[in-house]
């Protein structure tokens, strides 16, 4: 009897500890974001007219794919403990730059004074306007390459010159935002070829309307990024460098290369996301990314990508983007005034940042 009394407490302690640990893991993991989405949708669906319809699902997914790609790119930098504010400028520069190559015509009244007139563009269109599908693919490659170049600049400034990421990317955000406007003197690049416009369009009804090229691109990016982060040495190094830079360097992690590559990936995926946005809008737009920073950072934080570095996953980023898209969509469907939508989004991001602090306290250095 006395033996039982003595041994019972130690047996109960691990059980309760396991429960607490399980709760902590749930709060810190993707399951929490998924649960948040489900609860939110169920809670607002009576007020948001059409939220649970097929048509709205197509809208939500169409909004999700480009944002998810950009948020996944941002995640690489956040996991490293940095931040990439210049993604918005990359979106503006890259989508305009790529569109210049494939536009079918340019009005001289609008473009004859621009820097690329007579070289890349002319009255008969861009340099690749006659190249069909191959030209479109090449233009997309150039778009992504332009983004990667800006990312390389950011990465070198942060890793080699040891400049603070916030200041570096704030500076390049302003710099390349201006470059985007300078390239076309703020003009939109229209008359894009059908091959390019097909990326962002939905065809047919039923299941076919869900199966878009945008979806294909986003899914491939997500799977690839998930593999890199969770199954490769590169991914392990990225988390290590984001958790503790000094320890990582001592352990042999090539920190400089990790930083540069993370910023290149972030900018490259921002450029790829911009292709999806510009194709569905039917134009290359030099101000396309101006208002996107809130959505990107907000989605990443909600998805559990820690602002303190070292934590987060591609699935979390994807679910964070999904939550943010559903949030925007539902607020529109509730017909809330413009300022209320922004207030709610701001509050959600503050709440997510608070949650991030809480998660870090709960699970410490684990990811």
């Amino acid at each position, binding site marked *: 009897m006395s033996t039982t009394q003595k041994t019972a407490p130690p047996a109960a302690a691990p059980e309760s500890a396991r429960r607490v640990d399980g709760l902590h893991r749930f709060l810190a993991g993707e399951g929490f974001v998924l649960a948040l989405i489900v609860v939110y949708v169920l809670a607002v669906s009576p007020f948001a007219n*059409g939220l649970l319809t097929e048509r709205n699902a197509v809208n939500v997914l169409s909004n999700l794919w480009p944002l998810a790609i950009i948020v996944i790119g941002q995640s690489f930098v956040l996991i490293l403990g940095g931040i990439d504010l210049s993604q918005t400028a990359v979106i503006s520069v890259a989508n305009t730059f790529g569109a210049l190559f494939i536009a079918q015509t340019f009005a001289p009244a609008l473009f004859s004074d621009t820097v690329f007139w007579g070289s890349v563009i002319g009255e008969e269109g861009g340099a690749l306007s006659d190249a069909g599908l191959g030209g479109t693919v090449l233009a997309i490659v150039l778009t992504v390459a332009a983004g990667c170049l800006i990312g390389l600049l950011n990465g070198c400034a942060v890793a080699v010159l040891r400049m603070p990421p916030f200041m570096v990317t704030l500076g390049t955000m302003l710099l390349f935002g201006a470059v985007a406007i300078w390239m076309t003197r703020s003009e939109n690049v229209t008359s894009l070829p059908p091959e390019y416009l097909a990326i962002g369009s939905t065809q047919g009804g039923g299941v076919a309307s869900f199966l878009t090229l945008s979806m294909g691109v986003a899914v491939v990016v997500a799977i690839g990024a998930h593999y890199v982060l969770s199954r490769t040495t590169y991914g392990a190094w990225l988390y290590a460098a984001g958790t503790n830079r000094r320890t990582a360097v001592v352990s042999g992690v090539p920190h400089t290369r990790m930083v540069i590559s993370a910023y290149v990936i972030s900018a490259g995926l921002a450029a790829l996301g911009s292709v999806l946005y510009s194709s569905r809008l039917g134009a290359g*737009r030099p101000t396309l990314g101006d208002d996107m920073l809130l959505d990107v950072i907000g989605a990443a934080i909600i998805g559990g990508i820690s602002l303190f570095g070292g934590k987060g996953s591609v699935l979390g980023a994807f679910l964070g983007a999904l939550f943010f898209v559903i949030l925007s969509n539902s607020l529109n469907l509730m017909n809330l*005034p413009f300022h*209320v939508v922004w207030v709610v989004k701001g509050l959600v991001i503050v709440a997510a940042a608070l949650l991030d602090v809480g998660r870090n306290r709960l699970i410490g250095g684990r990811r």
Partner: protein
Amino acid sequence: MSRTRTLAAGVAVAAFTALALSGCATTGGGGGDTGSTEKPAIDVGVSLQGKTICFGFSGSETEFWAAGIAAISDSLEAADARVIEHNSNEDPNKQLEQMNDCITQGVDGIIIIPEDGSSADTIIAEANKADIPIGVFNRPPASEDGAAIVAVADNRGVSAATMEHMVTEAEALGLDRKIRSIIMVGNLSDQNAVERRNGFYDVVDANPDLFEEPIEVQTNWDAATGQANLEAAMQANPEIDLLFTSSDFLYPQIRSVLEPLGLWKAAGEDGHVIMGGIDGDNRACNLLKDGFVDATGVQDLFTEAESLLTALAEAIDAGETDADELLLDPGFALTQDNVEEKEKDTWGCVITPPNS
């Protein structure tokens, strides 16, 4: 006990938030955040009772747009329509998402003030695909591919008429040299800006002996950009005789540049620059009466709004989902010569300016 209290507090906060959000929902066609001080409602002619109209605009940054938005909102409300308003804050991507969300809700009609011509094309295509009639106010689509009711001013004609008067004034100066002129150009991805520039050059090209090559100042419809570029242009060319602005909302910026140079003078005073623009807003009307402005091309805001709403209401009533019509507002030039006669027909002279 404390857990129960925390839970209760949480539920109370959640309930309050839900109530607050649902209370904010716009379902009654209110003026939204346009800040109008008057309700210039228009008789649509057809009852829209039981109909839901989605009204998307890209911002209310100028007096013209603020007044236009207020006129449309109030008129829809007066016609008993249920109005869903969306302000995309000059973000075409957001405007597309908002219009798609309206289509999801099964609205009966859409009215948009698009960010520019190409985004109008995209939204018209979505509305056509969903068989919902759509009206476009004052900013025409870049192409004629889609079916839409488009109400727009004859920007080229109104600009030319305004310039004709300004040329008459310039000739009266009896200069022994050609006229040095400046045109403040809008965002040329907006067809309105293109046509206003064309109207200006129609008159300049028709008088080759009268004009030096005009100086173009880019504004991109942005006050700060316009002011900075005008300052630079005036530094390089301090002696100008005539200034044409593609929109009246730029007059405060023009004044802040010209006044220090001693060039903000009323007609008849030494140093007066012959000035004119387009819109016919309240500021231009008052400056014209005070003699600083010589002419302004008036877009008949109420006529445009009325013709658009009436055509859309009739299309909805007739079940016509692919209504395709151009409603052209001929407009007119309000000048120093006809201000007494035409003042009552100028929207900016007869309404209290909405906040912009």
